[in-house]
């Protein structure tokens, strides 16, 4: 029934969309790689970027290899993976809720993780992997409570956000309570964790993060198609034959796990999950979640922020979360101001 020209119009429109997406992904990947190499080259002992690249591909001398591969690579890789996980998690949550405010660091998920981690540090005196485990449990438990409380014949996005913010507030006050009861040295240790930091990450961090991502990333890509249908509203999605509730639950589980492992690996690095997906959507001009671009942008935000946090202030090294917060908070204010003006209330 459709003429050949009509089919052409459709094919071309689709090709143009995909070309744009591909271009953005390639350019972003290149920028991420450059940032990555620069961050590996800087430090107490500066290494030319070209030598860094050589070393990465197995051609450097012993000294550079030690500095790059042993000392700097784990931190940089952890940063990239944490950023990518946060970017994807944010994209999932914001698309499900159809609301840019619904990233895991605005609704309760990461606050829940923080409260549990601080409990582990302050009350149980734990460190390292044990704290991470507590953070993951905290994130999952928080998300579960959110989901159950938001359930009324299915989960509406609006309820999920409001309940998420409420639970976030509870988790934050729990965290504060724990901190005020703690001894000063321990409270300080907990506070550094709470800001989000990549200090002292080693290969064990990289491995655990890498394995989790290797499982979650393909699942995320698999679910993107459903997410694109879910975005059209529940009724349309039902009409198109999507199993709406199970798809949404599956996506929330993946989104929570991504945020949880990222938080477990580097503490609650604020605002990455919140800013990366909207920028990705704007760059790709994609109405959908733009998952790969969001992951790359998340990685880029963390890598750049860590670069600034480590080297921009002379001898003072800041936790990476300070920098992401400085970048992200104004964007949050902008978004709130704009949505209030439009009157949609976010």
């Amino acid at each position: 029934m459709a003429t050949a020209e009509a089919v052409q119009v459709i094919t071309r429109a689709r090709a143009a969309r995909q070309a744009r997406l591909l271009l953005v992904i390639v350019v972003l990947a290149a920028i991420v790689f450059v940032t990555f190499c620069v961050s590996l080259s800087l430090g107490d002992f500066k290494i030319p970027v070209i030598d860094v690249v050589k070393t990465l591909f197995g051609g450097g001398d012993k000294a550079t290899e030690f500095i790059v591969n042993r000392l700097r690579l784990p931190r940089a890789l952890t940063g990239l993976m944490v950023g990518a996980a946060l970017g994807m998690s944010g994209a999932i949550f914001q698309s499900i809720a159809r609301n840019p405010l619904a990233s895991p660091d605005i609704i309760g998920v990461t606050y829940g993780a923080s409260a549990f981690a601080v409990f582990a540090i302050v009350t149980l005196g734990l460190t390292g992997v044990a704290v991470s485990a507590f953070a993951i449990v905290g994130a999952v438990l928080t998300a579960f409570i959110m989901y159950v409380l938001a359930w009324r014949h299915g989960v509406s996005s609006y309820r999920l956000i409001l309940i998420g913010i409420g639970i976030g507030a509870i988790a934050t006050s729990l965290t504060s309570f724990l901190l005020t009861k703690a001894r000063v040295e321990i409270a300080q240790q907990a506070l550094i964790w709470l800001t989000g930091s990549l200090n002292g990450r080693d290969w064990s961090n990289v491995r655990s993060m890498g394995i989790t991502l290797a499982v979650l990333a393909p699942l995320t890509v698999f679910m993107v198609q459903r997410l694109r249908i879910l975005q059209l509203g529940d009724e349309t999605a039902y009409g198109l034959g999507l199993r709406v509730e199970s798809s949404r639950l599956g996506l929330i589980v993946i989104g929570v796990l991504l945020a949880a492992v990222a938080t477990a690996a580097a503490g609650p690095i604020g605002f990455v999950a919140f800013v990366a997906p909207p920028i990705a959507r704007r760059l790709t001009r994609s109405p959908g979640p733009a998952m790969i671009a969001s992951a790359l942008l998340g990685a880029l935000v963390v890598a750049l922020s860590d670069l600034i946090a480590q080297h921009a202030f002379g001898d003072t090294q800041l936790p990476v979360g300070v920098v992401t917060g400085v970048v992200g908070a104004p964007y949050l204010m902008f978004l709130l101001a704009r949505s209030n003006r439009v009157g949609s209330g976010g």
Partner: protein
Amino acid sequence: MENLVEHSLAADGLAVGYDQREIIHDLSVRIPTGKITVIVGANACGKSTLLKTMARLLKPSRGSVLLDGKSIQSIPTREVATKLGLLPQSPTAPEGITVADLVGRGRYPRTRWIRQWSKADDEAVAAAMTSTDVLEIADRPIDELSGGQRQRVWIAMALAQETDILLLDEPTTFLDLTHQFEVLDLLVDLNKQDDRTIVLVLHDLNQACRFGDHLIAMKDGAIAAEGNPREVITEEVVQDVFGLGVKIVPDPVAGTPMVVPIGRHTTRADAQPASVSSAAAALAASAAANGVCRPTDR
């Protein structure tokens, strides 16, 4: 367009409710295949609920919706989506989505993880956009379109599903009169082209008579009258279903029944010039009833 099997839709002993409140009680109906069926009734009579239940959005507490004689709840939802398409009352589009992209998502039930997008999908999208006349705006973001255009795009998305049955929940509610007729005319085209079975909920009785082959008038969660417009839209039925006194006159354009509400404050404009034909008077009255314009002295 493939159109091999004609699908049938019916409801048998249906009871549907939200929470404790039952909205539809023991309702049975057969939707005539290849016809346009319009569901009418007062607010909260259960007409949207019936449509949503037939589209498996709501699960009946008793009875069942039968698609090709099988309970719709027992058929995999994706398979249903290849036979029955739905346009909800207020669908939401993600910000910035283009027309072609949105219509393309109607192919979801036809694609699989393994079987990716193909030429056939492009063809189906192109066909859907051609018959709804939105091909020229393929690259435009949907937020920039007028209400009528946007509604045609959503219809195109449902058409891209290539279903024999199409359900629409108040497709004209948010449109002005011109766009209402544009959409309704389009639905008649789609019905004529492929013998598509179309079921829609409408508020305007005159439009229901004009465009419906088959009318279902609902009251308090049950069917009050059913049949062709002439049988259903009588002064008695409208009084019963809407609680409104009306006169029924023939529509001067189509000859279908036209409802002229009486109301409490109506005074007869006897001062009208004698030359005005009864048809013109009826037309003006209908326009007034539709809230389009006030009847003026001619």
